[in-house]
């Protein structure tokens, strides 16, 4: 990618400490970058550290009991080093995040309108009247009918899909340069999901926002992301451009994820191939590959030294990867 990247995350680790218990490394040496107008995907199952990564970028993790290591650089500024008030200026204006559950991210006792205009008056210095007009316009753009009525309503009066759209409207209010969408459609029905994803695509295409999409749904990633990072137990295990990852998954975990979901467009009758065990069956990265206990390709070399993430274009953390189906296309760089 020749474009200048907007956000660089280098060797990010997040360690949760609790008295009387061993430290938990939720994120363990994660690196990636996003450029303006680019969409990257962080994919993984619950507990793989994808949401903690996003909270670390936004500086939303609690100070006590949490240690954040590594570098997070946004447009030349080191985010973790920023004092709280400076960070607050960036957050909401240049950086925005949309969470999974719109009911817990919206304040239930404050009308929608106030929650959307708050961002506008604070960060863009608009007057109340102007902010109100702008807010109505934002709601209209995210596909909420009758916006001026909706602005007066409270979150409980809106349907789930509409709430999520209102939340996205708030996130978009200042035309952020980086948007993190953490499972933005998981709580929604598929027809509403399609609307929201379309909206995010338009946003990236029109205003050049950099988008980090966090999801467990490989289908969503397939249609949205330029580059996909697959996470397992706090580390990136495979990273590749979208077409390459889906056509030629090399890490047994990626391959296993793809084989375990039924596809609507494939003939039924074939048995699904689940991944053995559960995400609980991991070993710490310090004693080998965390996926080894569940891995069908496990060999002796998997322990006790964890493999590194190798490869520039198609990164892979595995000593015994799946065989490439398409060796001829791999040899020719596109």
């Amino acid at each position: 990618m020749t474009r200048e990247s907007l956000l660089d995350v280098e060797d990010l680790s997040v360690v949760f400490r609790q008295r009387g218990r061993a430290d938990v490394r939720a994120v363990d040496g994660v690196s990636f970058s996003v450029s303006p107008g680019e969409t990257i995907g962080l994919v993984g199952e619950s507990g793989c550290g994808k949401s903690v990564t996003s909270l670390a970028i936004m500086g939303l993790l609690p100070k006590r009991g949490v240690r954040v290591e590594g570098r997070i650089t946004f447009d030349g500024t080191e985010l973790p080093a920023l004092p709280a008030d400076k960070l607050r200026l960036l957050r909401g204006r240049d950086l925005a995040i949309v969470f999974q559950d719109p009911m817990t991210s919206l304040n239930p006792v404050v009308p929608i309108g106030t929650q959307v205009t708050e961002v506008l008056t604070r960060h863009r210095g608009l007057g109340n009247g102007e902010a109100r007009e702008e807010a109505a316009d934002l709601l209209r753009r995210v596909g909420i009918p009758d916006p001026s009525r909706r602005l007066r309503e409270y979150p409980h009066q809106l349907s789930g899909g509409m709430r999520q759209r209102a939340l996205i409207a708030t996130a978009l209010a200042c035309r952020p340069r980086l948007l993190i969408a953490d499972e933005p459609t998981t709580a929604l029905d598929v027809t509403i999901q399609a609307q929201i994803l379309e909206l995010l695509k338009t946003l990236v295409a029109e205003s050049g926002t950099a988008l980090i999409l966090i999801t467990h749904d490989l289908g969503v990633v397939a249609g949205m992301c330029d580059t996909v990072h697959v996470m397992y137990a706090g580390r990136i295990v495979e990273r590749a451009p979208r077409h390459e990852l889906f056509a030629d998954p090399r890490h047994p975990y990626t391959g296993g994820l793809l084989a375990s979901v039924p596809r609507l467009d494939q003939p039924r009758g074939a048995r699904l191939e689940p991944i053995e065990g559960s995400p609980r069956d991991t070993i710490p990265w310090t004693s080998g590959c965390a996926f080894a206990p569940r891995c069908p390709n496990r060999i002796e070399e998997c322990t006790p030294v964890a493999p590194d993430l190798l490869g520039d274009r198609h990164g892979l953390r595995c000593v015994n990867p799946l065989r490439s189906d398409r060796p001829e296309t791999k040899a020719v760089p596109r």
Partner: protein
Amino acid sequence: MSTPTDPAVADSPKTASAGAFPDGSGVSGEPLLSVRGLKVHFPIRKGVLLQRVIGHVRAVDGVDLDVGRGMTYGLVGESGCGKSTLGKAVLRLVEPTAGTVRFNGADVGGQSPESMRRLRRHMQMIFQDPLASLNPRQSVESVLSEPLRTHGFAGNRSRRVRELLDLVGLPAGAAARYPHEFSGGQRQRVGIARAIALNPELIIADEPVSALDVSIQAQIVNLLEDLQDQLGLTYVVVAHDLAVVRHVSDVIGVMYLGALVEEAPSDELYAQPLHPYTIALMSAIPIPDPEVEERRRRILLTGDLPSPVDVPPGCRFHTRCPFRQPTRCAEESPDLREMRPGRKVACHWAEEIAAGTIRAAASAHDPTATEVGTPSS
């Protein structure tokens, strides 16, 4: 594999017609489950002392369906379409407002509480969230032996518990443990073991995998399929994930706002969806393949699901339908009619849509104008 011998089913209503349908066609012979005109309306009350009924939530609004022995019927639809209520009404976990449910020829609605209790052993349920449906203070042994005790199981209970654990792929040592000690997938296995404890004939599975991690879902789907083969179970699978439902079901019913809008054999439904809602729903489901995703045409629905309190007049889907016609749609409610053998659809214009003479509203069909969901004017 252990084939459980179960004296508890000695007085089973399983009669001469117990032969399973291996082809899953479900049309020949008497269906195991037969639902006619089923309605579940919840009253909305207002006032404190004199609670006037000011309206009804029409959660299930006239559903007919048949489920043949040994087959799997999948019920899909979005949240609020009434699919879970329908599943519960079949088991009389909610009392239907109107209509009949016949199980094995017996009218479920007309049973006395005592005979209903005896009937329930043959129809069991698997719930979505195994953590919420298992008592945290009950060990697995206790969870699994409770139905055996309640229904007077004559054999050795703890041997039956081991047998059940083996059937669902849990180690025998699991019996002494408590729900919180298991992972989500294992907990769901416990829920399944409880459901099959009394050798039921019918199992209603309400979102059996949607609370689980992706890599675990396939394990549970495979387990349900294995148990069906081993024990000759009949399933009604209620879920929102059409890809999963299609994988497990022989026949799929698509629900919208309390009613079935389409019913078809699982393979045919994907090959050619007939109802506009099914077409839109299918096109909205992401497929984990970028090549396919780029070629697909997405039909975006505008607006939200109408409230089941006031269902739109005429066709219940006409307010969001991309194929809406100026005549009939807003006035006349379409029946679920058999368009071709095995294919039922509730749309006035299904033939024309299938033939391509009626197209979706131009903007919705044009891949370059996919932002119809976000009116920008």
